[in-house]
Structures are given as C-alpha cells and as structure tokens.
C-alpha cells in the first residue's frame, strides 16, 4: 500500500469518523455552558436539556454551513439553538427559570431572581439581545448578524432594555 493510498484509506475509515466526532465535541465544548444557560432562558429548565441536545445534533448535521468569516462558532451555535428553541416553543410553553438556593446567598438569590424576573418580562427582542450580549457574551455585531438587525438597532435595543430593567427594578424595590 502506498503512503498516499493509506492516507486516503485513513480518511475513509471509521477512525476518521471518530476523529471528526472528537473534533466536533472539542469544538462545541467551550460553548456548551452558554448554550445550556441560553436554553434555560428560552424554553425553561425542564426542556433546556432536550433543546440543547437537539440543537447540537442539528449543528452537527448542518456543520458544513458554518463559515468562520461570518461570525464566531458561539454565535452560530447560539443561532442554531435559538431556532431549535423557537421550534420547541411552538410545541410546548416555556417554564420559569429556577435558581439553586444552595449555590447562592439569600441576598444574592433575591437580587438574581429579581433581575431574572425583570429580564423575563422584557419584550422578546429586548430579552434576546440582553441574553445574547450579557449571558452568551456575544459582541453587538454578531448579535446583529444573528438576529438580522443592524448594529444600531442592537445598540438601541440594549439601551432600551437596560432602561426598562432599571425602571422595573426600581418599581419592585
């Protein structure tokens, strides 16, 4: 067997399949936590796991459509997740976010629950830009590409969302 033929054989062998899976897993792993956190806010904790799994399988199947020139891996994965979450919401209503009291002091829990509740009450687009910018840690330009907004619209939505949150938190306190 010549070296070229052997290399070709390697590419088509089960080993190559394993390697691709490994690479995909390694590629996804740094963003898995963000995907889970976004999913919880989009569809609720009970359904988040399934939605993330479905999104990752969908991402694997559509991996050829990812283009690094158009945005980061995280924004592409988040886009796939949001699409999957939208499909899920058409089937089942969303549930509320649950914060584990064991992991946070009482005052912090109160603050977080209040902020979570305030974010949850925002209009969908404002809530999404807040989630994508602060939780998924995506830059404005990538959020704009993801949601098909202009960057100005994203900045404006973020500003409006912060103002709305401030008002709601002041009212609740």
């Amino acid at each position: 067997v010549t070296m070229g033929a052997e290399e070709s054989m390697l590419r088509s062998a089960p080993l190559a399949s394993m390697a691709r899976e490994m690479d995909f897993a390694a590629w996804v792993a740094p963003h898995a936590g963000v995907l889970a956190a976004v999913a919880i806010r989009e569809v609720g904790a009970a359904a988040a796991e399934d939605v993330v799994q479905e999104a990752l399988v969908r991402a694997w199947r559509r991996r050829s459509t990812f283009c690094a020139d158009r945005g980061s891996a995280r924004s592409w994965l988040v886009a796939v997740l949001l699409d999957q979450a939208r499909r899920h919401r058409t089937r089942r209503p969303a549930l509320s976010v649950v914060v584990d009291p064991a992991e946070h002091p009482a005052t912090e829990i109160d603050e977080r629950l209040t902020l979570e509740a305030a974010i949850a009450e925002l209009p969908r687009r404002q809530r999404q830009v807040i989630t994508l910018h602060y939780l998924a840690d995506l830059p404005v330009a990538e959020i704009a590409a993801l949601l098909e907004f202009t960057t100005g619209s994203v900045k404006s939505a973020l500003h409006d969302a912060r103002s709305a949150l401030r008002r709601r938190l002041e009212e609740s306190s």
Partner: protein
Amino acid sequence: MTEDDAMDQRLRRWGADARAAAPPVSIPDVTSARWSRHIAWPALAAALVAIALIATAVGITAARSNKQASNAGHTAPTAVTPATAPEGMRAVVFHGLAVNVPFAWSTGKAHCGVPTENTVLLDGPTEACGVGELPAVSSVSFKQFTPGSVPTPPRACCALDGSTTETPAPQGQPITVGDAPATRYRSEPSPDEPFFTDTITVESHQAAIIVRSPDAMTINGIIASLRLEQADTNGCVSYTEQANFSPPGTASPGAPSGTASPGELEGSVPPLIPDNPASLTVCRYFGGWIEQSNVLNEDEAANLVALINDAPEGTSTSDSAIGACRSPSRTQPVAPAATEGFTLTAAYPDQETVVVAAQISCAPFGLLNGDSTRQMTSDIASALVSAAGASKGWPMNFYPNP
C-alpha cells in the same frame, strides 16, 4: 458612573453568574444511528462513551485487567474475551492497554526506531543508527514505563535507541484510563518536530503509549479508543504470573511436584504438549504483562511441539543472566517484574487444553506444564522468540541445572 453603566455592570455580573451556573452538557454522539429527537438526557449521556469522556480528560470505561495469581502451568486459561475492533480497524494491546488503529497499519515498520510508514511499534531493541529527517507518517508506540520519566518518540537528530530517549518528566495532566490512574502529555507541532504527540503513561500497567502524527484528527481518533482489555487479540490474558515459575523445591506456589531430575530416561514420561494441537497460541510476557502473541499455523505448531517434547526433563541454567537475575541458579522466586516468559496454550478438539509456561529471563530456565518440566535449550528459546516476536534478553546459552 451613569445609571446605564451601573445596569450594564449588573447585567455583566448576571451573565457571568448564569454561565457559571449552567448545567453540564453532554455532547451527543452525533453520528450514532441510535440517536433520536426525543432521547432523554441521561440515556444520551450513557451513550456518549469516548467523546464525552475524552473531553473530560480521558475517563475511558473499560474492563479491568485480569490479574491472575494462578500457579505456573497448573491451570487452564481463564475464559477471557479477546480484544476486538470495529470493521476496518484492528486492536493493538500492550500490557493491557488497547487502542484501535486502521487495519492497513503495519507493525514494527521502523528504521533506527523511527517509523517509516503508518505503523505500530512495540517496545524492544532498535538499531543503533540515526536518521536525518522524520517521515511524515503516523505511529503508535508502546513502551515499558518507568516512573519518573516520560518516554518520547525518537528525534530526527538522535534516534539511536528507544530505551535512551527518555527525558525528565514534564508537566502532565492526571487522567484515568478505565479505573487506572494515568498521566497525559500533549505537544503541538514545532519547526523541529512537525507532529502532534500525545503520550499517556499508566504506571499500574508499567506501560506508556505514544501516538504521533502530523494530523491531530488521527491522534484524537486513536486516543478516543484507548481502553483497558482483559486479553489481547489472540486471547492472551493481559496479566499473568504463569509465565514466571519457580524451580522445584522452592516455596513458590508455582513449583511443580514430583518433577523428574535431569538425565531421567527419555520416553518414559508423557509429552509436555500432546501432539497435533488444533491451535497453539504463543504469548510473550514481560513482568507478567502481555507484550506480543501469535497463533501458530499447523506446521509451525507441530515443529515447536516436537522441539519441546524432545528436550530433556528438568530445568536449565545459563552462563549469563539479564536484568535483576544475577544468580544462574537462584533458589528463591524472582519478582515477576523482572522476568520475561511465555505461555503456550495448546487446544485440542477431543482433550483438555494444555498450558505450558516457558521462562527464558531468569534461571532456572525451562518449560512447565504443571506436572513435568523440560529444560530450556537455545533452539527452543530461539523458536519461542521468533514465534511470538521480538524479545529482550536473548540470545544466551543454556546448560542443565545442577
């Protein structure tokens, strides 16, 4: 700070907290046909096997090594399942560590210890020579592991002998392979070394595996298959003390009873291995750990059986010894860690399987089937070595043990 800035800061803390509090996510087995849209999270997690476990530092589920404490030559082989690999691949087992490599990969294709094609290299002596440039091929190397140093693949400048390339231990990542603690060392390509290298040492198995390739995907695929196996592909158990037997009269549990003395009339005792076995498997062990094995064809088996049965009874000594074996006529059992030996498993359609232990590493040398012994001869040692593969500690001359 404006009110908007304050809210911005508060949202950033919220985002960081939310990311940190996110539940763990199992990456799905994306190519599995078993996956369905509504598979439950726990069930999916159970199906992840290599991907998720590698992602969390190689916690690879596998069978534990079968540490047999049986007496030399007295017991039939324990029923173990030979290591297998998916279609298109083949399993390679060394000291109980196993990986899958493409079926087309050769074994032992190296020059001066440097792989010349995609190949598997087992620990052993290499030619004392150097090479100018490392071929751009992939390789899996298994080495005996000594704690305190990390074996490295041969370098282009100084590829003289696999045993001389060890360097002081760099920082490694603690992992587990099966239930065995291990350490992983990874290196990226450099101008001097245009290869990815992944080295994993498993002290409890006295073994290290080095996977080197110009292609990271190849390494990932091979490391994903790393596991512990109870037996190699020919059914040789990964660990045994059968290949290390003690001379008659010592306190070792392996000592046979009623062993005839050298010089007893030939032909008055039954053959050590009955003629015409349906199969004869030769397993080579070092320190009790499987290193190489082979299943002989009919002619090879007949020749080896005849050679062994024709040897005089008793045990042998030698004019030289290796490693920790300094006395040519020791009276105490030698620790199996220092010994090299073989087991020969002869299977028959109409009678019980016979297991013979053959020791060539430490005196007394010889072969034992549990009931009687044969002296080790140069011809038998040579035949065993060539039957199973490369060996350390050979050649040497054998003489009847006084």
